[in-house]
């Protein structure tokens, strides 16, 4: 019984982690940017969905879509207003661009977060779930929403996989992540690829955010922790390796669930952190890291 509970709950939460981390690692893999406004964008998506379905009575579906759109726009804004500007900047020396982009996206994230807090207060909000009720699997009463979450996560990740591996446009993205120069030499405009990737990223973060809002609920406070968890998962899996972060997401997800069940909910986060530190010392490039 307990075993199945851990298995099922762990799966749902892990899938959510996986989706959250995928976009984050995609952006790093292709554009080499660690976007620290990640969490804020996810929260924005959730709150937008909440406001649309709750305040303006748009209904669950419309709300969800609205949330994703908001995230997409924010992602593009992040690229055009901040990342691109710094990448092209001549005033900042190349070796310093990393820290600048980190700092800038961080500030941007805080701005989004504070704006949300100002407009919608910072109490936790729960997005109107699309599916309701519970189903019993192997004797475990599981909220339908939990299953729905896991399903949508995997559908989205699957769609991304198909796009990247089955379409020429997708392959261009993949190619850009391996060798941007090569892509340019083949007559493909990198800037176009990047915009596309940021759009995809926005959509992914949006879906993840909305699902999170339905599953666990979010508040503007969640922004920081969300970024941190995505960051650690991605590093654990190996920066830029999508498959790596998927695995890492499940390692972390189950580790947390196990701790919560077997030791105490209070210590939930700690083992994952310890594992992370261990990996950092033993194998700095992460589980499946290429770089």
């Amino acid at each position: 019984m307990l075993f199945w509970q851990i298995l099922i709950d762990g799966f749902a939460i892990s899938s959510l982690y996986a989706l959250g981390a995928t976009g984050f690692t995609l952006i790093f893999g292709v554009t080499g940017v660690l976007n620290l406004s990640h969490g804020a964008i996810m929260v924005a998506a959730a709150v937008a969905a909440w406001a649309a379905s709750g305040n303006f009575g748009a209904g669950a579906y419309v709300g969800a879509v609205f949330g994703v759109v908001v995230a997409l726009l924010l992602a593009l804004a992040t690229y055009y207003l901040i990342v691109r500007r710094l990448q092209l900047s001549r005033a900042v020396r190349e070796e310093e661009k990393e820290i600048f982009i980190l700092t800038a996206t961080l500030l941007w994230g805080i701005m989004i977060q504070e704006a949300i807090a100002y407009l919608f207060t910072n109490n936790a909000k729960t997005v109107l779930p699309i599916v309701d009720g519970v189903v019993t699997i192997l004797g475990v009463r599981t909220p339908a929403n939990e299953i729905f979450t896991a399903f949508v996560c995997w559908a989205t990740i699957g769609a991304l996989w198909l796009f990247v591996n089955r379409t020429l446009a997708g392959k261009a993205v993949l190619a850009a992540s391996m060798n941007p120069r090569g892509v340019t030499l083949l007559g493909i405009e990198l800037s176009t690829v990047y915009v596309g990737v940021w759009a995809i990223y926005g959509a992914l973060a949006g879906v993840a955010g909305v699902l999170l809002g339905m599953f666990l609920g979010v508040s503007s406070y969640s922004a920081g922790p969300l970024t941190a968890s995505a960051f650690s998962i991605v590093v654990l899996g190996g920066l830029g390796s999508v498959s790596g972060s998927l695995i890492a997401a499940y390692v972390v997800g189950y580790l947390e669930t196990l701790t919560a069940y077997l030791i105490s909910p209070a210590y939930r986060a700690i083992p994952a952190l310890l594992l992370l530190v261990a990996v950092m010392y033993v194998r700095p490039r992460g589980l499946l890291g290429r770089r």
Partner: protein
Amino acid sequence: MSAPAAKLEVSGLQKRFGGLTAVRDVSFSVHAGEILGLIGPNGSGKSTVMKSILGVERPDAGSVRVDAREVAGWPPHRIAQLGVGMVFQHSRPLHRQTVLENILLGLLPDRLLDLLPRAAANARARAIAERVGLTGVLNRRPATLPFADLRKIEIAKAIARDPQVVLIDEPFAGLTARETASFAKLITEMRDDGRAVLIVDHNVKSMSALVDRVYAMNVGEKIAEGTVAEVMANETVRKVYLGGALTTAARPEAAFADAQTPFLEIENLSVVYDKAQALEGVSLHVHEGEFVAVVGLNGAGKTTLFNAVSGLVPYAGDIRRQGKPLRGRTAAMIAREGIVQSPEGRELFGLMTVGENLDMGGHGLGDKERGERREWLFNLFPILKERQRQTAATLSGGEQQMLTIARALMMKPDLLILDEPTLGLAPVVMEQISKALERLRQTTEITVLLGEQNVTFALPHADRVYVLEHGRIVWEGDPSRFAAEAGAMYL
């Protein structure tokens, strides 16, 4: 030169990187008051030797002795403290400090509690600056100095530590003729101070006036040792640098239709990488259907030239395609419009299969056309057909090179730029690629601009040849006349 023990003695040096052996059984020694030149084309392993001496790389076998002390495997700073100084090719001074402070850095002891600089050090620094000719700019910041002065700072730093052994990496790269002379002077002065000097560079010519002895390497091994004259006369050396007897198949320039406005015209092209002059007043042209080879040693500026054409680096001067200037078009546009580069670094998509790499090349074509194109390339490079499903990273060097060329050809280029296609390839593989080019040249109307340091490979295909040296065109003409007229300056 019968000095007692050598200041620097390398013997049986061996260094492996994964599978390939970068350096095999290299032995030489440098005595006080002697300059040894270590030469070799790209990939000959000379820089690995240098790194092993500095302690940056830890040799797998063999010994490195400084003043008869075994230092192999020591950390760099201890080797340095023992009296090994290094003049790096790329100067990276402290940008926020003055020239004086940069030189002072070289005089500082490696102590944590050394908070107050001693006046003596200051005087010493000024003296050194005087000697290398930086007195005028002592209180300026590096950012405001010309390239030559930056290099001088490097030399000053090295001298400051009063090393017994000095390693100098490509001392003349990016310098004008006049600057080259003054540098040569500085280096001879080091010798006269009784230091042991090791100069590392691509060819003998650049240092012929300077060195007492030369040690020539190729693919990780010694190929010759002796005086400049001896080495230049040495058969193996000549073969490596000039190739053996050549059969050329040049077509006369007049034979090409577009005699007045050639397909590609480059006029008075200059490129400067943060202060280093990479290209200076280069002019050349390629006719439609012509096969032009630009030969020059690594570092001569070939890649820079091609990158300028491909729109990857900013430049002064004009590059025209069929009379229309290319300036202002993005690199991708230029490629789409038919000037396609098969780059030196290959730039393959390592984790993608051969097939996928080709498809990326043909992304502009319709599915059907892409398929046909692929088939055509498969019978040009049959090996690629077998490897279709394999990822590019798992291919051998030769196969990767073929894939690079094939991928470029997928774009149906009007002009194909081949940058160092033979880099680090075994002779047999070169042969295969050479054959493929031959077939390409016979079966199609393709226009090719080839950059090579391997003359043996380049000349047979070429209609015309340019020799590039230190960013300048120093010779142009028919391949058959090359050895006779350009050989000397090339060695």
